[in-house]
């Protein structure tokens, strides 16, 4: 039986993990390799590293981070942030990433997904989607994709949620998976940081629209939120960042909770 995955997400700025607190077992909460080892020991099924380095000059630091983490921790590693080309993706894969996530660059140039999938295979390509519920008329870049359909409920944003686009999330999910995205990382901007639960309507709608796995992101605050995202939200994996980094919940607690409620998780 395939297990549902629990995935901590770590933001990395210039080679250092940000937004974390020190746990008892780690000396340096800013060291990506040490945190990765910590989460691995906690039972994390996979890790996502998001490069939030502002200057592209410093991006090579991320390659070193990936190199180091993947030499120490032997679970799947997804790396995202600032990936704009096949070459960017190759650098990360050669450094030891298993999957690379694309977001803004794929919206600007959807061909990027197909090019990367042709080069490395769909299993490497994660499409990260920042989604906001439509509230009033959509303002955005209409050139690439035309008008958002009248019935659209969910709008795609890029550049860390700063730029609205004319893309409907469901349409984008279908288009991207047809182009070769092998997995979708779906973040609800409405739920993110609220700790009131994932946007399960968004998640289940997307999950039913595609055949590839969906990772739920944004809104986790309590144990039952993870359960809801995997049942009501029909997601294949659940991701959280600050909840884990601030020690509010442990990965192991989430997995025990899910297992007690009949969700298959990796226990060993």
């Amino acid at each position: 039986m395939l297990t549902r995955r629990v995935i901590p997400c770590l933001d990395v700025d210039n080679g250092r993990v940000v937004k974390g607190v020190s746990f008892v077992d780690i000396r340096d909460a800013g060291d990506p390799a040490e945190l990765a080892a910590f989460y691995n020991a906690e039972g994390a099924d996979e890790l996502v590293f998001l490069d939030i380095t502002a200057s592209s000059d410093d991006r090579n630091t991320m390659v070193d981070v990936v190199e180091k983490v993947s030499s120490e921790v032997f679970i799947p590693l997804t790396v995202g942030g600032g990936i704009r080309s096949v070459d960017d993706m190759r650098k990360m894969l050669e450094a030891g990433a298993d999957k690379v996530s694309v977001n803004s660059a794929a919206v600007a140039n959807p061909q990027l997904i197909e090019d990367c999938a042709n080069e490395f295979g769909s299993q490497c390509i994660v499409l990260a989607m920042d989604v906001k519920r439509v509230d009033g008329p959509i303002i955005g870049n209409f050139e690439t994709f035309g008008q958002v359909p009248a019935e659209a409920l969910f709008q795609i944003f890029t550049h860390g949620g700063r730029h609205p686009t004319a893309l409907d999330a469901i349409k984008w999910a279908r288009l991207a998976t047809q182009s070769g995205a092998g997995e979708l990382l779906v973040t609800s901007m409405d739920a993110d940081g609220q700790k009131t639960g994932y946007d399960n309507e968004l998640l289940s709608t997307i999950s039913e629209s595609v055949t590839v796995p969906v990772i739920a992101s944004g809104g986790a605050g309590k144990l039952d939120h993870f359960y809801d995202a995997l049942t009501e939200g029909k997601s294949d994996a659940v991701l959280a960042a600050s909840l884990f980094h601030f020690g509010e919940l442990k990965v192991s607690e989430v997995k025990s909770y899910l297992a007690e409620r009949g969700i298959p998780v990796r226990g060993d």
Partner: protein
Amino acid sequence: MTENSKTPRIIVLNTRAANVHSVEKALRKVGANPLVTSDPAELATADAAVLPGVGASDAVMTALNTLGLSEPVKEFAASGKPLLCVCVGLQVLFDSSEEGELPGLGLVDGNVQLIPTGMKDNLGFNMKVPHMGWNQVEFTGEDSDRNPLFKGIPQSSNFYFVHSYRCVPDEQAEVAAIADYGVEVCAAVARGNVVGTQFHPEKSGDVGLKIYKNFLDLASATSN
């Protein structure tokens, strides 16, 4: 560890697949000193070899054919030395695949088929293709008969899978391990010295590293 005649020469065949470097790192982690290469001459003198692969089977077969590695890999398999094939590296051992047009290496009789879609899991949801994530692996047969690569690994351990196609060997006896994904998924094939895993041991935590450790031990025995 110092270089000496007893350090096994382990080759990771560079098929340009994305997991080549992960395989190399896992081998280093367990104490091996692997060489990543696509040179057939290096393969011919190796004590043991790994054939990694992800992505499409035609991509791996094209790489093997272009690099002049197809025949050398067959010869290596026939030499009796340990050959570990991972994911698409396993799939190309077969005669053919529904995924691609190029014939496989034909080292294992059988073919490779698309995992059926529309199956429901125990929560009542559609099972996704690709089969991606950690799944329980059951080794077939008696523990005492297990291939040496899988010794010491607890039954029902979880391993990490990413694939859309599944191997269907003609000989059931060559299925070394299975996983349940609505349909039976062949998780590992063993034909003497030639072993393939559908899962990624290099991404399966401690149980995965144990396979590489077993592989290193086998390679050491071969080099002595």
